[in-house]
């Protein structure tokens, strides 16, 4: 589903990703672990289409199509979703209005009819209830004054409504207490199926206790330096990243 080939990326002339290769198949949950500064967030932003980055070489293929030339909204319409590490506060935009606008924008881009308000409300209520999100929160401006946990749950709510084919979760566990972590993980697990893939970026093993990965990649200095099964995450938890940092150097 996702194939990243020989991807090198710079920001302001400073190399961040260095010939990175990565494959995620449909139905797979892939984890990327790595020390701070290894380029994990850059990878997620470049796949999602954030400006500010210079792609020096390589391709990012989604279902065989190179998406690097597409705008962020075109990528979203193709089924890509990024759960932000730091969800952005948007004062003045009511969360509910935003949710409906995003769902309809994606539907329009795919040539589907817009959702009616009753259909939207039904979908939104069901998803919000599963994530323990109060309706009152959806009447507030998007992410404004939300706690860290609320923001992360709101990301998962958006994912549940938008039903992406490939979801990238960038450090979704950061700032969550154990109860919030479980709610978020349940939300992700509920969406797992053989047509959908997840790329879970995390610094710690903890999240992977709740979202069981099929594969674990270790990233260091802008490339994937080791790939294995779930046991690799446990090994990292025991030994830290020191060995891999040295490998890539």
């Amino acid at each position, binding site marked *: 589903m996702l194939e990243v080939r020989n991807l090198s990326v710079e920001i302001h002339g400073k190399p961040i990703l260095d010939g990175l290769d990565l494959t995620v198949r449909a139905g797979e949950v892939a984890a990327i672990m790595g020390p701070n500064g290894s380029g994990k967030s850059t990878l997620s932003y470049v796949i999602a289409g954030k400006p500010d980055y210079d792609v020096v070489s390589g391709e990012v293929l989604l279902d065989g199509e190179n998406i690097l030339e597409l705008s962020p909204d075109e990528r979203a319409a193709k089924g890509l979703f990024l759960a932000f590490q730091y969800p952005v506060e948007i004062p003045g*935009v009511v969360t509910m209005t935003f949710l409906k606008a995003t769902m309809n924008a994606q539907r329009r881009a795919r040539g589907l009819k817009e959702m009616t308000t009753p259909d939207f409300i039904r979908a939104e209520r069901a998803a919000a209830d599963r994530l323990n999100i109060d309706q009152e929160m959806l009447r507030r401006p998007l992410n404004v004054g939300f706690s860290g946990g609320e923001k992360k749950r709101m990301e998962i709510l958006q994912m549940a409504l938008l039903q992406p084919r490939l979801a990238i979760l960038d450090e979704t566990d950061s700032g969550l207490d154990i109860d919030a972590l479980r709610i978020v993980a349940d939300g992700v697990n509920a969406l797992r199926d053989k047509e959908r893939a997840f790329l879970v970026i995390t610094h710690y093993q903890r999240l992977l206790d709740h979202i069981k990965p099929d594969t674990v990649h270790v990233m260091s200095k802008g490339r994937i330096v080791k790939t294995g099964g779930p046991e690799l995450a446990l090994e990292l938890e025991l030994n830290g990243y020191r060995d891999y940092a040295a490998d890539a150097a």
Partner: protein
Amino acid sequence: MTRHSPQTRTAAETELAEQFAATQVALPALDREASFRLFAARGLPTRRDEAWHYTDLRSLFANAAPLAGAPGAAAIAAAGQALAARAHAGAVTLVILDGRYVPELSDAPPRGVSVVSLAQGERAPGANANVDALVALNSALAQGGCVIALAPGAKPAERIEIVHLMSVGAAKSVHSRVFIDIGAGAHARVVESFLGADAGDQRNVATLLDLADGAKADHTVIVEDAAALHIESQLARLGDKAELSAFGLVAGGTLVRRQIFATLAGQYANLALGGLSLLGGRRHADTTLVVDHAAPHGQSREFYKHIVADEATGIYQGKVVVQPGAQKTDGAMKSQAILLSPHAVMNNKPELEIFADDVICGHGATVGALDPEQTFYLRARGLPKAEAEAMLLEAFGADAIARVADEDLAELLRDKMRAWLAARG
């Protein structure tokens, strides 16, 4: 020096003098002769006049369009049709067509309110004509207008909309005058809509608001036509415990100057001024305020927002003066602009002149761009660029419109903002 000396009349000044000489209107409420002498002595303002620094009218106002004549039956009938087709901003409509109050197009005023044509207005000449050259010019050349008076204690349920309409046809100019006198304890809700001007049309209009003790007024202006020149002066006087809340939406006009002179003459007066300017193309909109705290315990709030796109220019000049003796004044002013293009310009100039020692006054001005992090977040969720930007801009503008207390009027203003945003996308 290529600049004209003040003694040399520009083409426009000569034309205005000729128009004045040829005009024979009897408007008892205006002292035309004295006003024109005052204008002629000053001439059109230039950038050397501090209050007009960013809008050099002497160079921008090249030629005066002919004064609009009195509308005939055909123009009145056409205006009636144009009026029927629009979204109303008030339950009671008063129509000023080509500068004249037209009773046959206007509704009967609500209880407690009288409306008379300026030609019949039994009123002492406006004392404020000397505040600004363009107000003086308005007094000198006014073709007509109306006097609206609310009896003491009158609180009509209906909002009054004054529609300033220009008839279709050759380029022309209008200098109309509206007086709104609000009796003690009365409450007026008034909208002034400016419509129908074409790209060659010019207007220099003035509204004088007088709030007696304990009077209240909600006043909203909507500028959305295509006038080449839209100069609008508001002069307000607030008595003891009077409250004026005024809002201006500027979504039209090529060269726009809105100037508000408000005097808090009575104690415990409360003034709230706000506005939203939506500027694209090469349009130029100047909002200049002078808020004069002349009595103790006054409160004033100024809150303006500007969205400036393309090669447009926005100007905000806000001066708050606290006179000696106006102790316990509480003033706060804010002007915020978003520039949508590298060629868009915003000049923000908040000023305080404080001559009393026991006051709280503050001001702030910001000029920025849309936040790229916010735009990316929305686009990553599937909103195309134009839609993402419109959502952020709507939120920005709605923050200004939130100061309009009447919810249905606020919604009308939001609709107009959304239409403007959609048209630019």
